[in-house]
């Protein structure tokens, strides 16, 4: 047995073995007797629907959760992981699904968080800290200033810091839980280079993603979990997209969308006129038609999120105006917009989406409580009925609508947040990365629901980094660069390349 206390990591193992690991939470069997092997120098993809148990498995490897039963081994040596420190000592490094950085610290401090360079008295060696970080970035090809504060970075930049941190040294196993969920294509390419690099250094990589095309680019092997159980394990060369999806969902899914032709002749429901905001939006104008899906594309920091927030009244606009429902607004807040029948789904689920002290039902009904009111009193029966309906519709994995939202898996939380707006009458919905972290089955459901609702007259502002979804759903695509709209494209008359070109403008 290898002691967890003080070990010099022996990178020369052949396989990280997970043997019959189980883990249950009250009311949920998150992992049920799962076994798998991750070989050194190989990328092992882990797939499964939301709530399948992927993150749970990772957290057990990381020492964040303790397993109920089972073993974890380097070849024949049992690992004794009691806490995150043990795991780090074994060289197991994790890029978590939710951003895990200290936002008041510099990039460099975050990278070396678990091992600050100090002298023997514990005094920080700042020069070494910055130099080592600089070197690391050069090595992995990221372009970040080691001294910038995390809070000043965009979500995707933050994700890059997380990735860099995991690979910096002493890694024997690198685990990535949906690392690309907020990266742009350009950055994803960089990440793949990093991963190839890691492979060459004989590091074992466990890679969790919902983006199926990625695994054919980098993975050597794929394991699928469903409901906490091991379903299949195949070499990448022996499988294909359809097979994997079938293993994951238990059926096949179809993801192409029909859009009505003459949508741009429909009446205008929102006119955004030359708005600017304190954070970066400059002179943006566009119209939105009834039933239209208006897609937005932009590279990291292009300002889509800021635009969404400015339109929704979260950020004050400093200039320009917005016309909805024949009202012209120069100064407005979120409740003005909600009252005008506009909804918003954030890209930052944990920070701005879920209300952690509330259960699933209460989270779902938050913006729509008025419709459940009898006089002044909330009719909880009505409320619960609506919640149950959407739990069923999106197959949210939960024992009941009364479960605390924080106990759901990331993707299931996202489904709740989507439902939050669909249970009320909406004219316009603003979607900022609505399918981030949502599994392929549910994603198709969410997207076809958006499509259906749009056909019934709902207008959609769609901000997504998933080019395929954008192309297949949008009636028009606006490309943003540096807070401005750089180009407008029409459905069917544009290629991926053209969009990219416009976005680097």
């Amino acid at each position, binding site marked *: 047995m290898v002691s967890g206390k003080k070990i010099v990591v022996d990178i020369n193992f052949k396989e990280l073995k997970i043997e019959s690991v189980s883990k249950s*939470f*009250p*009311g949920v069997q998150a992992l049920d007797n799962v076994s798998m092997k991750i070989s050194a120098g190989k990328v092992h993809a882990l797939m499964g629907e939301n709530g399948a148990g992927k993150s749970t498995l990772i957290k057990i490897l990381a020492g964040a959760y303790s397993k109920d039963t089972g073993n974890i081994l380097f070849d024949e040596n049992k690992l004794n992981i009691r806490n995150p420190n043990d795991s780090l000592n074994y060289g197991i490094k994790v890029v978590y699904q939710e951003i895990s950085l200290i936002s008041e610290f510099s990039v460099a401090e975050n990278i070396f968080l678990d091992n600050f360079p100090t002298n023997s008295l514990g005094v920080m060696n700042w020069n070494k800290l910055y130099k080592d970080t600089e070197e690391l970035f050069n090595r992995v090809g990221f372009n970040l200033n080691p001294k910038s504060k995390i809070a000043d970075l965009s979500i995707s930049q933050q994700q890059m810091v997380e990735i860099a941190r995991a690979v910096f040294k002493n890694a024997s196993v690198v685990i990535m839980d949906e690392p690309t969920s907020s990266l742009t294509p350009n950055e994803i390419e960089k990440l793949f280079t990093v991963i190839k690099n890691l492979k060459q250094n004989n590091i074992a990589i466990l890679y969790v993603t919902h983006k199926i095309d990625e695994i054919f680019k980098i993975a050597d092997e794929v394991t699928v979990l469903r409901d906490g159980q091991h379903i299949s394990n195949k070499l990448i060369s022996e499988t294909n997209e359809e097979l994997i999806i079938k293993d994951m969902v238990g059926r096949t899914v179809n993801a192409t969308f029909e859009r009505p032709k003459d949508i741009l002749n429909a009446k205008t429901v929102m006119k955004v006129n030359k708005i600017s905001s304190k954070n970066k939006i400059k002179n943006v104008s566009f119209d939105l038609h009834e039933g239209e899906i208006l897609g937005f594309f932009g590279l990291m920091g292009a300002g889509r999120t800021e635009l969404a927030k400015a339109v*929704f009244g*979260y950020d004050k606009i400093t200039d320009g105006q917005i016309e909805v429902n024949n009202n012209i607004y120069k100064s407005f*807040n*979120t*409740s003005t*917009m*909600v*009252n005008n029948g506009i909804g*918003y789904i*954030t890209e930052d689920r944990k*920070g*701005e*989406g*879920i*209300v*952690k*002290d*509330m259960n699933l039902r*209460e989270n779902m*009904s*938050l*913006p729509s*409580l*008025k419709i459940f*009111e009898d006089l*002044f*009193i*909330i009719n909880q029966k009505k409320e619960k009925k609506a919640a149950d309906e959407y739990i069923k519709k999106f197959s949210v994995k939960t024992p009941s609508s009364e479960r605390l939202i924080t106990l759901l898996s990331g993707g299931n939380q996202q489904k709740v947040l989507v439902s*939050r707006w669909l249970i009320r009458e909406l004219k316009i919905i603003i979607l900022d990365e609505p399918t981030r972290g949502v599994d392929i089955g549910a994603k198709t459901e969410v997207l076809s629901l958006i499509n259906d609702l749009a056909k019934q007259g709902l207008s959609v502002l769609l901000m997504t980094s998933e080019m395929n979804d954008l192309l297949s759903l949008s009636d028009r695509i606006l490309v943003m660069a540096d807070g401005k709209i750089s180009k407008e494209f029409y459905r069917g008359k544009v290629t991926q390349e053209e969009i990219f070109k416009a976005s680097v403008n």
Partner: protein
Amino acid sequence: MKYFQTNESILFGLLVLLCIFLSFYNPQFYSIQNIHSILRSSSTVMIVAFGMTILLTSGEVDLSVGALMSFVTVIVMDVINITGSISLGLIAVFGFCLLIGLINGLVRTVLNVNSLIATLAMMLILQGSVYVYSMAAIYNTHLIPLFSFIGQGFFLNIPMPVVIMLFILPFFVVLLNYTRYGRYFSSIGSNPDAAKLSGINNNRYKVLGFVITSLLVGVSGVILASLMDTGQQGSAKGFELIVIAAVLLGGTSFMGGKGTIIGTILGILILKIIDNGIILMRIPQEFQLIVPGFILILAVYFDGIRKKNSG
């Protein structure tokens, strides 16, 4: 019983145990006078605690309630003395409380000052300016019987302060548990960004929370003035700590998001019965500090254990 949450059952059990213990020790505990005395002194705390529960639920706190309360006793006595009209006295009080609540709320929302600090500052300002208003205590020279009735009278053999409290209570139970406003307050306390992005006007409800609390302080302050028959600066010393301790004991979280009026009421009753028991048992009054200290820590500790066990 269905509406009791588990935490509240624990407090309720504690309360029953206390009562049984005290009544064995001193049968006087159940005398009608004693029950009146406990309930009367609980009422002023409860009335303010309703507001404080809302504030803590929405992630804010008001430390200025004690200072405001003593200011209210001075204003109400002075204005009624001068005008001879209770209505004018009440108008002055509630006008003033409204103003203070608004200032607290606006300093919190517009200047974005943490409410602990904003209301600490307000406490200093009120403590200082009450003396600027009147150096001396203000005695009842109007001698209007109705005014004495507010704090000292009985209605159907129930002390008036209790009647007033019972009159206000249902409103807050319903507000927090069964209306959308209750949900708004807790979502603002739990995740202000999520609340704002759900179309809730956080600032409006925060200001409302401060205003409600201040107005309730007005009610309690008038009762206190009637009870003391005096407008007394420096009264209600340490009142804010008692209110906050009771609300926390009742299971409301200081970090916002969770609050219960029933818990608050139980918390206050427990603290007040301990106070009362210490006098009944003729134990040194110093224990009026020590025992609640232990109870507070223990109650929250057991609540934590329970939550851990139930997942």
